């Protein structure tokens, strides 16, 4: 079985701070990490490899320094790694990103493609389903558990109030939820191999069979027109008194607002 896992390098958004004076993002010192949902997807692929035998390839689109997440994936146990990196691809929205990744994937053999449900810097959850559409294969998103039975993939798919157990014929694409597993750590031997033995294959513009009109900023149907920090509402009254006084104050306010 051949599995392709798509991973993204993202800033750890829990570490992002806003400059209180300028109202802009402070990016310095924010660590770059493998997107958590993608990492869970990689772990799911590696478990299938452990249980049933599989060849796991990892693909990442991003700047050259995104190779660190591919090294991490190799050190966790992935067999091959591809970095799609070219200034022609920059500024891509989800349409252009999915066109680029889908075109890259057509160069490889695959039975199963796994992406994260969404990336923590964009939260769109669009790229996985869009890749599947470009490739003409089924997708199942919000995967909490997954198994391969013969030529079918069986997925526990999360909804707000229920799960569906869904079957799809392979080749198929799955989008993984971060909560589906706890990813393994890199092993010292794995790290050694990832840096000394294994190669990351670099693909630039000419390596990807995709139309110019479908890549980068120019190939993106959407445009960001502005970004701005969130307007926080004005704080109200803060009190620091004893328990009795605090409760009385809260009661007065609740009555004043007719909330009781």
């Amino acid at each position: 079985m051949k599995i392709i896992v798509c991973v993204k390098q993202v800033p750890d958004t829990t570490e992002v701070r806003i400059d209180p004076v300028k109202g802009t993002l402070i990016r310095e010192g924010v660590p770059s990490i493998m997107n958590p949902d993608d990492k869970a997807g990689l772990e799911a692929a590696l478990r299938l490899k452990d249980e049933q035998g599989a060849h796991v390839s990892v693909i990442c689109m991003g700047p050259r320094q995104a190779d660190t997440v591919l090294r991490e994936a190799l050190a966790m146990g992935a067999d091959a790694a591809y970095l799609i990196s070219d200034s022609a691809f920059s500024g891509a929205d989800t349409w252009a990103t999915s066109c680029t990744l889908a075109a890259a994937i057509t160069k490889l053999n695959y039975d199963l493609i796994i992406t994260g449900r969404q990336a923590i810097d964009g939260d769109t959850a669009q790229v996985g389903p869009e890749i599947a559409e470009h490739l003409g294969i089924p997708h199942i998103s919000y995967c909490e558990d997954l198994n391969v039975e013969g030529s079918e993939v069986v997925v526990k798919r999360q909804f707000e109030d229920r799960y569906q157990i869904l079957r799809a014929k392979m080749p198929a694409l799955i989008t993984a939820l971060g909560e589906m597993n706890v990813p393994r750590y890199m092993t010292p031997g794995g790290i050694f191999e990832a840096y000394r033995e294994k190669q990351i294959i670099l693909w630039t513009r000419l390596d990807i069979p995709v139309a110019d009109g479908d890549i980068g900023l120019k190939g993106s149907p959407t445009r960001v027109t502005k970004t701005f920090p969130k307007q926080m509402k004005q704080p109200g009254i803060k009190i620091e008194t004893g328990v009795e006084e605090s409760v009385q104050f809260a009661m007065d306010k609740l009555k004043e607002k007719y909330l009781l």
Partner: protein
Amino acid sequence: MTIKEKAVFVFAEQVDGQITPVSFELIGKARELAEKLDSQVVALLPGFKVTNLTQELIVHGAQAVVIADHLDLEHYRTEPFTQVISQIIEQYQPEIVLFGATSIGRDLAPRVAARIHTGLTADCTALEIEEETDRLLMTRPAFGGNLLATIVCPEHRPAMATVRPGVMIKRTPEEKATAEVIPFEGSITENQMYTTIQDVLKKGSSKHDIQDARIIVAGGRGMRSREGFALLQDLADVLGGEVGGSRAAVEAGLQDKSKQVGQTGKTVRPVLYIACGISGAIQHLAGMEESDFIIAINSDTTAPIFNVADVGIVGDAFKIVPKLTEAIRSERENR
């Protein structure tokens, strides 16, 4: 029947024959957008034996309904729903198509956008029509809620967006409203992209959706234990509200994921929100700061939750919450 040019389409999501509340919120917003465009709001209703739901959509403001009633649409599956929505869009060429940012909407919308080749903006919290250009301005949180970004779709039509539940306001129902119901004229074809539903497992958690609650008492890491959350439940009970939790509380196993408030949980705007032992990470504030009245109880005087609270109480929630519950109970009994 002709549908006006520049129409605003809304995907009417239904599960087990119940329309998901966000669909009504979308219709409410779509009416505002359609008025600016001199056009109309059309609800798209795929399902099986759902004819009885059309009037509910009309009562909430839909000015036409396109209904696709087919056995393949009985339960949500990506491919047959994508076929229906894509064909309706191609036939009527709307200006805008809106979906709820639910686990169905966020699955369906990207598949449709890729099939018809247009742009899609995820999880919008504000939508407006730009004066002069008539473009749809779609605003959404980025970087985990640290920033807001406004996005446009300049050349491709329709502009598509998923919209966070709980953010837009539904219209006052007009019981006597009437509108045309148009049957879907396209075809639904089983292909290799079909999936099979083998089983459905309902989650055990309570049916009460915190997005429908008028009053929410929410707890964070500071409530420490199940005993701490039991105090919140007592307060919620006496107020007739629901108990919610921050991401930290959910990750600590103190509250169910379905009750999580915030960027990765639910957006709520209750009449009263009482935050107990919640420090107020920006991801949490993103989900609750639109509440009408916010009371925060936290022992840390520097907690960011106080920046959005109408009433901030610096103190021990374990002591204050039971006293507050008691005070409200006796107030009610004395009436």
